[in-house]
């Protein structure tokens, strides 16, 4: 049997080889990532407001988010543009590249009251059950430890307002009923984790 695939994923089928996940090629990904650095920073550590760091992120999460941008299901026009026509294999290699880098958190000045509040909210809302107790993430669940505080807050507000949808509605539900001040405390607490 042979399959000819039309559309966005056309080349991927032909180019892939056994053990795609393990074999995803970080070196190839690095070459593809040149145009990303302007926003996501050198080595995947973002220096820009509202732009997430990608270094050390979970590769499956990165892959899925790039697909969602490509397919227009997660909306952010510059990212939708950046992913247009990028084939599956390139996406997997980009993900392998960013996952292989080391996150260098730029922690905000510590506000002890906010940290306490964020920590307590994370416990009552079980953030660590999916994101793991050290918030390093797993599979489709992203690392949130050490991410930029401004991006964390921004994206949590978007989940709450149903402006961001993911591969499931887990996050829209997980933040249900939290106030903006709650989300600020969570973002602050998480940005300080390593």
């Amino acid at each position, binding site marked *: 049997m*042979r399959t000819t695939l039309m*559309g966005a994923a056309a080349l*991927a089928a032909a180019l892939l080889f056994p053990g795609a996940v393990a074999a995803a090629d970080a070196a190839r990904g690095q070459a593809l990532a040149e145009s990303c650095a302007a926003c996501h920073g050198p080595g995947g550590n973002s220096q820009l407001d509202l732009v997430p760091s990608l270094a050390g992120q979970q590769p499956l999460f990165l892959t899925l988010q790039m697909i969602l941008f490509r397919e227009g*299901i997660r909306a952010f026009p510059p990212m939708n543009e950046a992913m247009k026509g990028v084939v599956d294999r390139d996406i997997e290699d980009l993900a392998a590249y960013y996952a292989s880098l080391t996150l260098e958190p730029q922690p905000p000045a510590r506000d002890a009251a906010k940290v306490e509040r964020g920590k307590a909210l994370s416990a009552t809302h079980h953030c660590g059950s999916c994101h793991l107790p050290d918030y390093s993430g797993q599979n489709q669940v992203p690392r949130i430890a050490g991410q930029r505080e401004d991006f964390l807050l921004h994206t949590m507000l978007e989940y709450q307002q149903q402006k961001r949808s993911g591969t499931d*509605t*887990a996050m829209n*539900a997980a933040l249900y009923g939290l106030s903006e001040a709650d989300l600020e405390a969570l973002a602050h607490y998480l940005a300080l984790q390593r």
Partner: protein
Amino acid sequence: MATFASMRLALGAALLAAAAVPAYAQQQQVPAWAVGREGSGMSPTLAPHAPKLTVTPENELPINDLRVPDGFKIEVWAHGAPGARMMAVGDRGTVFVGSRVIGRVYAISDEGGQRRVRIIAQGLKQPNGIAFKDGALTVIAINQVLRWEGIEGKLDNPGQPTDLTSAFNLPPEEHHGWKFAGFGPDGRLYTNVGVPCNVCEFDRDRYAILVSFRPDGSDRRIEARGIRNSVGFDFHPATRELWATNNGRDWAGNDVPEDTLHRVRRSGEDHGFPFCVGDWNDPAVPRRACSEFEQPAAKLGPHVAALGMRFYRGTGFGAEYENQIFIARRGSWNREKKSGYDVVVAKLDGQGRVTGIQPFLTGFLDASGEKFTGRPVDVQQLQDGSLLVADEQLGAIYRISRR
């Protein structure tokens, strides 16, 4: 099935159980997806499995692990359709395939013994409902009903569909809002509306129903109530009765409640959700006598996610399979020991009583019971009598035929 979402109109099971607070008065204390987890005794790390949305090459499919009964064989029919779910077959043999997260509708055709996969629609919100009739393809996404007339004549350029969304006026909730779709022998379009929570109080004329319409979206009729989230149904080839699978709720325990198979004898019957599953009273909601409700035709296993189902029409598989039901069980997440990940046959006697549930396609779950290499979500019979099985996880479609 995954049961994640905001629960705006719902009251959490936890609160119901506590019962001290008036229903809609209190802010929810627990995120909707986890309602019922506290005190369930189940592992708090249980969560839905990750999808895979990139193309999987044919040589990475687990074809050598798959098992079918003696006298049958299984092969890869198509691959490279990430997220492939519900299937409908066109008059000229095109297999139309819906999806959820990836938002695509595929058209797969056989060209000289090879399968060609086209993406005919994309960017839709969970276009899981796929039905074909009189040359037209109807797609039901969460917030849309779309129809392409004469689709098989224009697969390379399907053009703009007719938008029937407002005529059908289906609820917009995402949670359990993905649809199964099919035309009945009466020419009406049938679909499901799931309940937008795990377990809660809700409008029982609007959610947890099977419902039918004239093809233009008029003349809405409730076919069955109290069916929590059905994502599969078909009509008995002889009696024309509607039969449907149903997903039981999460966090009540590893072995309760079971997913169920329902036989709908008359339009409008009440099948018991949220109060009862068979003779099991859900402790999360006020107690009602389960004898008030229709009983399921069969139990299909706890948390197995019984989804797409079809009656086998004709005798191609042998007389013992004629008018029997093939059911895809996508596989559990809300259970400490994984179960499902297979296709079973519900054996029916002459009176339409289910006499047993037999395994038919197995091997997606490895011997440890921990790793899976496929999640079967739908079955569909081809004109030649063979049976297709759609695997959402690796975007493949398998074909089972007689040796």
